[in-house]
């Protein structure tokens, strides 16, 4: 098909996106087949994944065995924060959780193999070792979220009801952007995967607790520097009718999709910049 002279770039972008998704799907399917070779081990790791992520909530339950409220929040309210953060992070982790292996690939030179293949590198890295066991985390997040929605006494409006799925999807996109930006950082600092983990896993842990738990400066940091507060704090506090941290305006509850889009754009730019600086080890 001949290119229309006026709009070559959107079409090219669309093509890249489509081939990226296709590559992602093929690689992910391959890894799923490979995982299923050792079925007993898969069952164990999937269960372990579910249990591991449940531990965080068990800790919260153990805390609530001793107290009625934590920093002014009751158990169902914290469960809403926990479930929304966990589900959003679980979605991002399923899709992008392999990004933290990029540093290793840069170090041992196996990234070169991906560069010569006719598929977008980002899709190949993201789908590498695609792990279906990560469904455990999503399952667990959704279960806690379900409990929260049943246990909470909320005066539902259509707007509030719409905020919940919006929060999960935007939150997943924000976490995914952090994964990609973290991977881009690893082009520079090759064995600093843990810095990325502290933002992703650490961010997830942070968002499980209400903002009133943390010092103001920390809350400022995760609102204005790394906008994790948009994953669930701002939309969830709107649903709960709770005061916002830092006296932020309430309409911010509806901005997560915009924040997510901006984060993804920034992360994409960082990724392309990182990829350009890549020099093979030559080994």
């Amino acid at each position, binding site marked *: 098909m001949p290119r229309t002279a006026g709009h070559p770039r959107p079409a090219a972008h669309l093509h890249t996106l489509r081939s990226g998704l296709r590559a992602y799907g093929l690689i992910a399917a391959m890894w799923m087949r490979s995982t299923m070779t050792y079925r007993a081990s898969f069952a164990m790791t999937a269960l*372990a994944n579910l249990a591991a992520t449940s531990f965080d909530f068990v800790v919260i339950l*153990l805390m609530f065995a*001793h*107290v009625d409220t934590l920093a002014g929040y009751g158990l169902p309210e914290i469960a809403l924060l926990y479930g929304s953060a966990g589900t959003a992070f679980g979605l991002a982790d399923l899709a992008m959780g392999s990004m933290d292996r990029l540093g290793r690939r840069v170090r041992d030179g196996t990234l070169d193999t991906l560069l010569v293949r006719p598929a977008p590198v980002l899709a190949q890295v993201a789908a590498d070792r695609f792990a279906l066991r990560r469904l455990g985390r999503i399952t667990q997040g959704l279960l806690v979220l379900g409990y929260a929605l049943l246990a909470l006494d909320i005066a539902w409006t259509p707007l509030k009801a719409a905020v919940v799925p919006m929060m999960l999807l935007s939150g997943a996109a924000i976490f995914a952007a952090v994964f990609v930006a973290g991977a881009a950082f690893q082009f520079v600092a090759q064995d600093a995967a843990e*810095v990325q983990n502290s933002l992703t896993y*650490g961010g997830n842990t942070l968002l499980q607790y209400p903002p009133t738990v943390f010092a103001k400066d*920390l809350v400022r940091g995760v609102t204005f520097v790394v906008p994790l507060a948009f994953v669930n704090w701002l939309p969830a506090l709107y649903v709960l009718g709770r005061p916002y941290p830092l006296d932020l305006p309430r309409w911010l509850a509806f901005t997560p999709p915009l924040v997510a889009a901006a984060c993804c754009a920034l992360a994409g730019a960082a990724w392309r910049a990182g990829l350009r600086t890549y020099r093979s080890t030559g080994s």
Partner: protein
Amino acid sequence: MRLYAVVAAGGFRRYATYRVATAAGVFTNTVFGFIMAYAYIALWDERPQLGGYDLSQAVTFVWLGQALLMTCAMMGGGFEDELIERIRTGDIAIDLYRPADLQLWWLAGDLGRAAFHLLGRGVVPLLLGALAFDLALPASPLPWLAFLTAVLLGVVVSFALRYLAALSAFWLMDGAGVLQVTWLAGLFFSGMLLPLTLFPGALGELARLLPWSSLLQIPADVLLGKRTGWGLVHAYAFQLGWAAALLAAGRLLQSAATRRVVVQGG
């Protein structure tokens, strides 16, 4: 003996090579230390003296957990992946051929690794935690010495557990599942998630009897001055007992496993 000292030094040097990774790890431990410390402060604000700790002792517990996470390999990160890989590929045959004891060889390497992680990833987070929060750290050297002894014993118990888990690869080929279950138990029953004194009733009693309490709960209690005199002797005896029992079990399993080894030519 000299051989194992060299192996231990090798284990230390090996991890010392990864300077950026160590710095990144310190960053992560510090981030998690802050998050957990604030959550604990919220909890102890509601219930001072919860679990027998005052607020500053509770926050100290958090930072000790971050300092010992890698040292006692609560979430793994030691030799076990490599041992499993050697079992899977058959390279283990070469190890068995060496004039060294397989278990002691890996133990020596793991002690070297633990020593590096204590210095590389333990000291700085604890210092940063002490700068940001009011920690209940002892001023005299004696409790620190008692603490380091408990940490050493904790590392041996941790090694013995992970060694047992890794040997399962002789039967399962893919040891990832068993390792993950082991790490989970380590995370939950070591006190890393919450001090074991906060676990309710029978669960708490069970948790305090399991070997994993040697990894964090006991060393932390020793440093916080909860275990002195006969209590300290009792704590050491508990750790030594588990270390001996688990190492012996590893030895038994190892001899059963090596009888199974069939070396494929090539």
